[in-house]
């Protein structure tokens, strides 16, 4: 199911040159911010919740997942080099799964791990840090599946993905209750909250719901993406 050659090419393409800087910056900011705030407010307070939750979880994670997830396959589709990959007998499911795995791993590396580090740096928040780390890993997985799917469905995946992250996740799902089942951030939050219950996380979903939805969305997304990739068409000169 996992193809090392595809993984190696994908990882090199994603981490090459300037791209890696783009998603290393948010992670660096997170850790830097935590360090600065810890130095200036050693007594603690409410700031870890803001930094780890609002910044790390609600913004850093989805944004990093968006850029990486839409890039692993979307970049190749956009410039046409995906043909060289597809003109081989490799099963499309393998391609999708491998790219998804690389995206999830890189997102976890650049978003979940810094989250953990920041959480450990912040005073008295070890349990929360661990909970958020697990939640962020789950979030990385689900986001990656959805964004890889999006990049197969449209060349404008990052635009729609940004709309989703900024508007849907950022605004609506916090205000409108029922909508939370469609918000990946809330799956991750639900899991984090189950491990380290914290009022300030504003998690709306329980553990079971979050897990089930996370699995359903991931598997469904990957399946749909595979079916679409099997029917990949080269229609003349792309716009």
């Amino acid at each position, binding site marked *: 199911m996992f*193809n090392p*050659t*595809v993984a*190696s*090419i994908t990882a*090199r*393409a994603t981490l*090459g*040159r300037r791209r890696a800087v783009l998603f290393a910056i948010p992670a660096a900011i997170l850790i830097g911010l935590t360090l600065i705030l810890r130095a200036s407010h050693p007594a603690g307070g409410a700031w870890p919740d803001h930094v780890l939750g609002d910044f790390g979880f609600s913004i850093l994670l989805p944004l990093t997942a968006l850029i990486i997830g839409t890039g692993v396959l979307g970049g190749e589709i956009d*410039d*046409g*080099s995906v*043909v*060289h*990959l*597809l*003109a*081989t*007998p*490799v*099963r*499309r499911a393998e391609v999708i799964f491998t790219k998804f795995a690389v995206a999830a791993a890189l997102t976890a590396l650049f978003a979940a791990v810094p989250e953990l580090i920041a959480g450990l740096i912040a005073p008295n928040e070890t349990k929360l840090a661990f909970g958020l780390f697990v939640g962020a890993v789950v979030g990385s997985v689900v986001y990656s599946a959805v964004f890889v799917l999006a990049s197969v469905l449209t060349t404008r995946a990052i635009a729609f993905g940004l709309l989703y992250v900024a508007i849907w996740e950022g605004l609506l799902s916090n205000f409108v209750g029922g909508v939370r089942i469609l918000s990946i951030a809330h799956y991750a939050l639900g899991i984090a909250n189950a491990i380290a219950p914290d009022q300030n996380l504003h998690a709306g979903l329980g553990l079971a719901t979050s897990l089930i939805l996370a699995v359903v969305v991931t598997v469904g997304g990957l399946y749909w993406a595979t079916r679409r990739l*099997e*029917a*990949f*068409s*080269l*229609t*003349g000169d792309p716009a």
Partner: protein
Amino acid sequence: MTTIEFRNVSRWYGNVVAVNDITMDIGPGVTGLLGPNGAGKSTILHMIAGFLEPSKGTLALDGSPTWKNPDIYRRLGLVPERDSVYAFLTGRQFVLATAKLHKLPDPERAAQWVIGLTEMAEAQDRRISTYSKGMRQRIKVAAALVHNPEILLLDEPFNGLDPRQRLHMMDLLARLGNEGRTILFSSHILEEVERLSGTIQVMVAGRLAASGDFRAIRRLMTSRPHVFRLKTSDDRRLAAALVGRDYTHAVELTSKGLQVRTSDFGAFCEQIAVITRDENIRLTELLPTDESLESVFGYLIAN
């Protein structure tokens, strides 16, 4: 021995018909797919390569369709027109990766063989982003050949190559064709196609305009009538004078002037000035109206 069979294949996008009712067989040896831009050549190649589904008709590779069938890639290699390759890899890494993706038993050896074949050995350890256009073409061909396919599809392979590179590419393709492989390449330049291929398929506006030996088709093309449009002080009298000549095919009086179809380009050009002078007609405009490749192909379609 592999044959690609097209039976009444059509492909459309909404209202635009890209390929219109094509029936042809492509067998071993080198076949050239000739036609002006927009004729549907890329569409044909992409359909054979399994990257487009025919809207109608059947397209089979030795009996099995190519759409949604990744196994065909064991026997088929595609060199796409677009310049896009993994620019951050070196030539060797790219070909080697392709070999591994094809699950070859000895990817290193296959890669080295095909790099030698395309004369890329010197440049193989440089990044593809540093390659010239000709080198990119060659590395794409190398990647398409690494699994020793019976069928090789090339979309405008001579685009952007200088004469020496073109000769070399032709050599390579001729050799591969002589080994019994099925090679299909597309071009809109007749000279390229005729040098290399025994059989040509000519496409115009999605239809198959001509197929067969290129020499026969060439003969057809040089004997086609030329069309001129003239504006004179007395079209009708000139028309009457021209109709009597044996190089005149047809004469038409239109609102835009006199349209003359002639089968003997040279004779007409020599004579027109003489005729107008003798008849005391003032010739104000003389335009050839169909020097384009499209009209040439168009003529082929009509016949």
